[in-house]
């Protein structure tokens, strides 16, 4: 005499159901987590570039202002990637024999642009404008992080829509005086939110959250 199923079958059956349910829930959960962690947003990845350009050196050691190279950051949507010409403003005089700059010189003489690798990318349907942010007191460091400490540029902000919205809904904690806009190390004296409130009034900061602000 034997039953169709052994006594162990009950436990196995329950386990299988538990695994299936947990697997389904886990998959959904994992995807939602993935969308929020650096691996999903592209943060924390040092990106190799054709020329070993070290922002640390240029910003920290040479004290070059961001706007020296990114010339249009306060005038146009695009911050501007410096032309080879601009590199050679200095490097025709200094390090003009360095092998590290071979590619830069080659670009100049062959009239072929250097193809940098893009680090900060928003989708094509997102229209980000540097000028308006920079002119309303949102410093470079707010989105790009401590570029002065980066040997190779990496993305520090998640650049998700939710992240954009957080600031557009409450910009005050991210505002700074325009004089300090490119500063990597500026710290407010006192309450940053209170200062932000003051600056928002001064600069007429009115971020918008309607869709066409960014999507066109």
């Amino acid at each position, binding site marked *: 005499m034997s039953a*169709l*199923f052994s006594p162990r079958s009950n436990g196995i059956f329950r386990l299988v159901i538990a695994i299936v349910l947990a697997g389904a829930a886990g998959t959904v959960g994992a995807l939602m987590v993935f*969308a929020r962690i650096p691996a999903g947003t592209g943060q924390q990845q040092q990106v190799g570039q054709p020329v070993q350009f070290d922002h640390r050196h240029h910003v920290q050691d040479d004290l070059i202002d961001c706007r020296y190279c990114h010339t249009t950051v306060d005038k146009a949507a695009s911050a501007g990637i410096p032309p080879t010409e601009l590199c050679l403003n200095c490097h025709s005089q200094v390090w003009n024999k360095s092998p590290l700059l071979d590619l830069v010189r080659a670009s100049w003489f062959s009239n072929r642009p250097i193809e940098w690798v893009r680090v900060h990318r928003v989708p094509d349907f997102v229209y980000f404008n540097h000028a308006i942010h920079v002119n309303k007191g949102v410093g470079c460091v707010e989105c790009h992080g401590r570029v002065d400490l980066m040997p190779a540029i990496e993305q520090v902000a*998640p650049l998700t*829509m939710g*992240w954009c919205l957080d600031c557009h809904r409450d910009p005050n904690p991210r505002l700074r005086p325009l004089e300090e806009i490119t500063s990597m190390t500026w710290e407010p004296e006192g309450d940053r939110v209170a200062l932000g409130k003051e600056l928002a009034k001064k600069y007429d900061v009115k971020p918008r959250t309607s869709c066409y602000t960014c999507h066109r």
Partner: protein
Amino acid sequence: MSTAEKTIQDVRALDGPPVLVGRPDDRALTESLLSPVLGPTRKGWVLLLLALLGGVGFWTLSLVTTLFVGIGAWGNNIPVAWAFDITNFVWWIGIGHAGTLISAILLLFQQKWRTSINRFAEAMTLFAVAMAGVYPVIHLGRPWLFWWLIPYPSTNQIWPNFKSALPWDVFAISTYATVSLLFWYLGLIPDLATLRDAAKTRGRRIVYGIMCFGWRGSARHWRHYRIGYLLLAGLSTPLVVSVHTIVSFDFAISQLPGWHTTIFPPYFVAGAIFSGFAMVMTLMIPARRLLGYQQVVTERHLDNMAKVMLATGLMVFYGYLMEWFMAWYSGSPSEAFAFLNRAQGPYQPIFLMQMFCNVVAPQILWFPSMRRNEIVLFIVSILINVGMWAERFVIIAVSLHRDFIPSSWGMYYPTWVDWGLFLGSICMFGLLFLLFLRFLPAIPLFEVKELRSELEHHGPNVYPGSEEEG
């Protein structure tokens, strides 16, 4: 014979033929009703399966084309942005109403004649809802993003819009599909246990044994089971009404002439039941002959279903009349035009077909002899299916093709992909149904046995509502 007895007898006479023929015992019932499942595979079944597989291939090809090419593979356009897709959706959802209606509402009203056909109707519901569920997804321009209609916390911080009828649809259809599945499966569990115990081979016993989760017919389970089953039926009843109400909201909340009307919810529900019963009839008439279910699916069942079709058909006709009346009474030229255009515009043949199939043809069911004539019923039920599809097409596409601004008027012509998705879905539906007939008990055994037991206790013609005392 006392007056009271005579009255009862008269009433019983009115009640028509029996719901169960003969006095079979439980073992005989089990054997005869399970023979399609446990018996050998029939050649006809295989041939039919192969034929339907061909249609399913066409369906698959159409689906793949739609996904890879885009909605452009269809005939849809601006102004007719919805056409065969939503027509099919509403049609299938409507058909999917009969199952729950038969199972739930008739159970609540304790119509004993429902027992023999409810499983059949529920399966039909499930498959129809499954077919319907395909369209809302594939009709999207970007179907791979269908999950954006589900409220979940996204990194975009944006949510669906609950003022639109489409998220309502998402909830209604998924709830309806889920509840129908649960209801159907709950009803299947005791029968799956019967299959487990009646099956000959160990493999089948194991499969059915797993599927029934270990049902052992315990009275302690039956006690909760009966209440739970009844509660599910109770929940399904407003649900079934709500689902087609919400589907009708897709149209009714808009402002398009021909869509924007308050009569839509009841009119759609009536239409759904109308088409659902027609589909049950279409499937049941051949099935009962081929599978030998005449014993449990009797003329009485056909007669009652025909009556329901006649009644709901008249309700639908009333809906038409009210639409026309309101179009005239509203004084709105575009509203009036929308209905004139149905009757006189370029899609007039479809309108006439709708009127013939839905209004004229069912009138033959006034005659009792016709209600018991399988051939007549079969033809009428098919006509109703066609007519209800035409009705949905007329409501959806014909309303859209000429609306407010004449310059934007246009015509819709289906492509082969449209036809493939329509006809192919019928084949897929048929295929699922064939598999169901072969592998699951199409007649609910435990309910028929319960009915038999009640008949034994209360006589051959159980008067509705009389067996529940004590």
